[in-house]
């Protein structure tokens, strides 16, 4: 479910920004490839790396990964789409912001802080 929401968000942003930006034009192969790359890399990052990073570093790393994925998808999809730098910048920033919120949804940092406190108290009681 959470993964599906991520896929839909990425796909819509990839299309919506190109619709709003006259210099950009996105074709289906690029949209599908970039959605797949961003979501796959993002999911691995979210599950394996993000819990060990602070909030800002995690969102910034995601933005960089998104920009790299867009460039990669543009190459792999044969270059039929027009993805200028402002487009890459806008999509990476918007999706970076989305990721910052998404991280809070999938990983509750406070719970681990509380658990650590409880462990510590448990140790004192023992």
């Amino acid at each position: 479910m959470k993964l599906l929401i991520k896929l839909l968000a990425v796909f819509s942003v990839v299309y919506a920004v190109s619709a709003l930006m006259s210099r950009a034009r996105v074709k289906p192969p690029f949209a599908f490839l970039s959605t797949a790359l961003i979501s796959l890399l993002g999911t691995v990052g979210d599950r394996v790396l993000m819990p060990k990073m602070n909030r800002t570093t995690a969102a910034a790393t995601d933005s960089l990964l998104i920009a790299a994925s867009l460039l990669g998808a543009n190459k792999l999809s044969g270059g039929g789409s027009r993805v200028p730098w402002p487009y890459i910048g806008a999509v990476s920033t918007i999706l970076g912001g989305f990721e910052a919120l998404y991280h809070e949804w999938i990983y509750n940092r406070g719970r681990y802080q509380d658990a650590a406190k409880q462990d510590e108290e448990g140790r004192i009681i023992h």
Partner: protein
Amino acid sequence: MTSPRVTCYVNTCTHFVAGNLCGARNIDIMHEEETRMAQIDDHTMCKTYHEASGVTSYLGSMDNVNWSGTAAEMVLPGHHLDPSVSCTVASCKYWAEGRLCVAPSIEVTGALANECQDTNCRTFESRGEVTFG
């Protein structure tokens, strides 16, 4: 013999996967002190804990990664990722000959741990008859 399900709360370990899972291929549960048999769960630890502190820490723990399980968990979340468990805590009632753990599931605790001694097998239950060595 199947290994127990592993739920882990040690969010600072390179093997930790959000969702309280462990992405290691195998974990070693041991007595915290070599010369003292564990009597309570705080006396146990996950020796496989590897502190996540930059890229090198991930490279250092790559030889013990459950690659296929982790990949499956990424695309089909929820299938549960369980490492094999090798345990030397013979004072635990779930322990069996051959470094086995016969508990159906175990919980490894130690959120915000900095070293393996900060982690514990919360499922430990004393056999009762073992005395300090």
